[in-house]
């Protein structure tokens, strides 16, 4: 599915964060948004999900405007969201978090089994309160919950934040595997190596707009864009 953000303006109350943000993600592509803190990466994902009001511009999914829908209708269009900090339902069990994901688009036990086969460790912890999981397990659950929607577009907000290398590798492999199945992915990432290993293109965000979009094939960890827009 093609996701297009056109001249988006959005923010929190009087504070405008996005100032004409424009990008498009092609079907089956992994687009990574990179930029400094406060550049507007997370707000861009929240604007897609209808969690911040879009005051101008449009979010279009395969020709259908999404930003005019109520927030709870957005995931039903096939957009899965893994928010920054996971935002699990901490007082619910692993199984209940997964159930919430399955309910979104009326998915069944078959999807549940497939998701649990991607993250078998979650199967061992189905009755455990999700707040008691380790950081890595919580991230697995956040991704599993989003995958229960069988999303056509997946939004991942810093999925590797605070994780150990083995967990980062697992999440990277998952994104690559999803890409192979045709899932379109928007990834917010601060780690240059992680971005380069999974993304097809990187959109550098600064001041609430995309300054430059570059195919990862033309980038290395020492490319000047990372110093200019990310500060690494």
């Amino acid at each position, binding site marked *: 599915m093609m996701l297009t953000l056109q001249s988006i303006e959005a923010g929190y109350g009087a504070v405008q964060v996005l100032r004409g943000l424009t990008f498009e993600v092609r079907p089956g592509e992994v687009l990574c948004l990179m930029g400094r803190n406060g550049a507007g990466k997370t707000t861009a994902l929240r604007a897609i*999900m*209808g*969690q911040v009001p879009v005051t101008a511009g449009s979010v279009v999914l395969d020709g259908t405007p999404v930003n005019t829908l*109520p*927030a*709870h*209708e*957005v*995931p*039903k269009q096939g957009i899965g*969201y893994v*928010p920054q900090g996971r*935002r699990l*339902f*901490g*007082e*619910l069990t692993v199984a*209940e978090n997964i*159930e*919430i*994901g399955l*309910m*979104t*688009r009326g998915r069944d036990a078959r999807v549940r089994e497939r998701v649990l086969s991607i993250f078998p460790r979650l199967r061992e912890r189905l009755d455990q309160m999700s707040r008691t999981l380790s950081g890595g397990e919580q991230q697995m659950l956040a991704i599993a*919950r989003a995958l229960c*929607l069988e999303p056509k577009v997946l939004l991942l907000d810093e999925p590797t934040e605070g994780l150990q290398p083995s967990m980062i590798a697992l999440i990277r492999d998952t994104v690559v595997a999803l890409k192979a199945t045709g899932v379109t992915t928007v990834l917010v990432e601060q780690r240059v190596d992680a971005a380069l290993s999974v993304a097809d293109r990187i959109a550098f965000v600064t001041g609430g707009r995309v300054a430059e979009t570059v195919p990862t094939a033309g980038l290395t960890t020492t490319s000047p864009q990372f110093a200019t827009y990310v500060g690494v």
Partner: protein
Amino acid sequence: MQLGSIFLLALLEGLASASVLALTACGLSLVFGIMRVVNVAHGEFFMLGAVLAWFTASLIPGPPALAFAVALVVCPLIVGAIAALADMLVLKRLNYEPEATIVATIGLLYILQQGALTVFGPNALPVPAPVDFRFQFPGFGYSGYKIAVIVAAVLLLLGLWLILTRTRIGLVMRATQIDRATARAFGINVDRVYAGVFAMGAGLAAIAAVLIVPIQQAHYLMGADPLLLSFSVVIIGGLGSLRGTVVAALLIGMVDQMIPIFMPVVFPAYGAWFTPTLAKIMATLVVALVLVFRPQGLFGKRAA
């Protein structure tokens, strides 16, 4: 009467009082727990349930049990529908801001109270008990209806617990309670959940009122006591904690009945002290102690 019989009588009175209070307070607690709305109009939903029960009973001829059964089903539904309407027309437009919703529900309190006065008048309105039999205990006979109220309240509370913990609706409500933004990201229509929860909370108060109205007549000013007692219960139990609400309702209900019925027998020299007023003072003292030493309540969670 022997001491054991008096104790049993006080216990039964306490349980009857606690069971109705638990139902009412669970409605208040549910609304606060999920919506973070302090519903000052909760007592008026209770009152509305009671006066509608009288109205229903007066409309339906035949045995009192039939009219009561209809009232028990219809009144909570009507009160719930009014509450859902109030949610959609008022609370939603205020974006459920805590301060604004307190003011709005105070306004709702007066609208419902004065509306009931206008429609049903200022007089106390009696509803006949649906059953008229007595259980014979050693030394005293006890109202079969009050025991039925206790059993009904226990079943309803059990049903509420099952809905919240074992059903999809309950799961959706709990997810909304934890994080409404993330709930929306998973397709949950939070506005609809809130309207449903507000209706359910008011409906619980109305059920409690229908149950109590054969014992205590309906009146347009009867909402104040259940509101204040419910607040006491949810403060002691912990705002939003249903388990705490039930435990605190038992505590308050028992204190309310044990002090005036049982204590004068145990301490006959000081019998005049143990009045219903003392029971109210004790309950208020417990609230004050909880607020000072455990402000989150017995079962509530401390704010992060």
